[in-house]
């Protein structure tokens, strides 16, 4: 891929360089096609799967993880792999949101999002400007953030003295507000990645950090922008989690960290960076929700659902790897 000083890529960023392999079927698309066929067959033969209520439930259960996963996509594309501090950050954001409810919904929203953006963008700055290892850094940040959450709350559940968040649990046109926010965040992320200089530079930095640096791209700034966007997404998730659960304790974030990573990977974004898209992540998040839904409707246990999710992510990661290896030949 050619890199210009303005950061313009010469090829569509989520398309692998296809040299001499055009006639072979793309394994990712082939696998996705097979999976969709299997799901359609399983869904059609599952009682109540093809109903409006179930479609709503799938979308609703995708929203929280999906919003965070969209933010994580930018970070992964920009070559920062993953963050392991997501659950803790969302928990702190939720606590701040609930504790500041007496100040009004707008103020508490602003403070909560500001917290998410700041905590996450600082990590992005350390990674972007000083090339810190994102895994190690975010493990440390996760401990620190979780510690702060426990210290501030003293382990108790934070709830709002004067709850003003009911509007966030509303369901315009029958769908939870979080679903609309997920769609809006996806559109914004996709637009940023495709239509802005910063977005294109994220692909270039993720593809080859050293080359991007040598080409004069603002590696540090691009990384911080990706992480700040990620922080805003975590902030939104934290706010919706707080409103949905009407309280926040240290366990609120649950498995959000790994669920978001799974959704990004299931969408086919390369963990090494440089490839992927927000739309794919939305697809990945939906896919995981649909599979969980089919398994639940068919009476499989939570354990089986988690197992299948793990196998799906593994299969997609292997396929993406094979695809990129083939693309390099």
């Amino acid at each position, binding site marked *: 891929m050619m890199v210009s000083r303005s950061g313009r890529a010469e090829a569509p960023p989520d398309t692998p360089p296809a040299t001499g392999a055009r006639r072979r079927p793309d394994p990712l698309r082939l696998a996705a096609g097979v999976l969709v066929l299997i799901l359609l067959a399983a869904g059609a033969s599952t009682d109540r799967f093809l*109903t409006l209520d*179930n479609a709503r439930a799938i979308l609703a259960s995708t929203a929280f993880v999906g919003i965070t996963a969209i933010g994580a996509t930018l970070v992964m594309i920009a070559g920062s792999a993953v963050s392991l501090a997501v659950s803790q950050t969302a928990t702190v954001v939720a606590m701040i949101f609930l504790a500041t409810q007496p100040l009004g919904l707008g103020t508490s929203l602003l403070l909560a999002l500001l917290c998410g953006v700041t905590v996450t963008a600082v990590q992005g700055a350390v990674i972007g400007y000083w090339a810190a290892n994102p895994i190690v850094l975010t493990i440390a940040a996760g401990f620190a953030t979780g510690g702060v959450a426990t210290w501030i709350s003293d382990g108790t559940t934070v709830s709002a003295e004067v709850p003003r968040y009911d509007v966030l649990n509303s*369901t315009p046109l029958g769908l939870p507000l979080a679903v609309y926010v997920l769609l809006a965040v996806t559109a914004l992320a996709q637009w940023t990645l495709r239509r802005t200089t910063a977005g294109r530079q994220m692909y270039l930095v993720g593809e080859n950090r050293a080359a991007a640096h040598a080409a004069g791209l603002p590696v540090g700034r691009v990384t911080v922008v990706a992480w700040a966007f990620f922080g805003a997404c975590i902030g939104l998730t934290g706010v919706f989690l707080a409103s*949905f659960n*009407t309280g926040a*304790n240290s*366990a609120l974030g649950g498995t959000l960290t790994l669920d978001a990573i799974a959704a990004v990977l299931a969408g086919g974004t390369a963990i090494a960076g440089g490839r992927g898209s927000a739309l794919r992540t939305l697809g990945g998040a939906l896919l995981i929700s649909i599979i*969980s839904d089919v398994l*639940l409707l068919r009476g499989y246990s939570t354990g089986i659902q988690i197992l299948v999710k793990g196998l799906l992510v593994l299969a997609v990661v292997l396929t993406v790897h094979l695809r990129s290896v083939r693309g390099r030949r």
Partner: protein
Amino acid sequence: MFRTRSRRAGTAAGSLALVLLASACGGADDAGPSASGAPGAAQLKGKTVALVGYGKANSWGAYYNQVFNEQLAATGVRIDDMTSMDPGTQVQKFNQSVAQKPDLIVLAIWDTAAMAVPIKKAKQAGVPVLVVDGRPDPSVQNDVMSVLSDNVKLGEFAAQNIIEGLRGQGRRSGNVIVLTGTKSMLVTQDRMQGFHKVMATAPEYKVVAEEDANWDPTLSGKIAQQLLARFGKDGVQAAYGMADYMALPIVQAAKQAGFPIGGTDGLIVTSSNCFKAGIESIRAGELYGTATEDPGTIAKQTADYTVRFLSGQKPPQSETVKEERVTKATLDQFAEQCSHA
């Protein structure tokens, strides 16, 4: 290069010193000797208890630890804080405590099976163990003392709430969904045993789904959304979330799916151990009911048991905390007790 290395070494040593200093200062609150002067102080001064319980990051554990420390503060007993948030760390801390040979280990078990062998080792080492909240593995039940929550009763209360709520609505039949805590835990199994026992007395109401939500509020909300869609508004009339923080996401999921909640024809949602948010929800007419198992009550009873044991009074090998059913009718009686976590 030498100067750079020296600077790095100096920075590392300085950081380590700061961490050690912070640890020393920060630990004073929890682990230091309690104030003496209360009855029994002279007798118990110098005794040591290792608290291998749930960590502060768990709201139930945080309040339990606070009350337990407060209750023993006047006795002169020293409490070593060995609490943790995961089963693996707990086993390590338990083994560490056994090696230190305290006068008593107070243990709230994360993983029943994983703690069986360490408990046997503690017995061999002559270190007494007091298990609190959930019962230990049956293979080591006679090797420990215990102050236990009555989990069977908590499950029974949940079923009573559902039956009472549905009958109050005049329903002659109804379907119930259940979101449990981690199914492999004896706490969960005991509650479900009590729940099914009472539900069997009302065969007109049927449990149509029982899912493991792993004590996770977010997962509870997600599973609830899917189950409510699966059965539809006519297909589910009641729901049981094993803790308040699991039942409240069910309420939200139901509201978003357009289910009426409570009242004369809405979804009856119950829990089986109370938190502040659950009490507020009952007051708002959304959660039908819950039950106690509040950390303050069991912490007081554990502290009392500890004093009796350390002062040589030989308390019974096992005690069970009396649990109470909480509904709108009994809310005022238990609201304060349930509002600390």
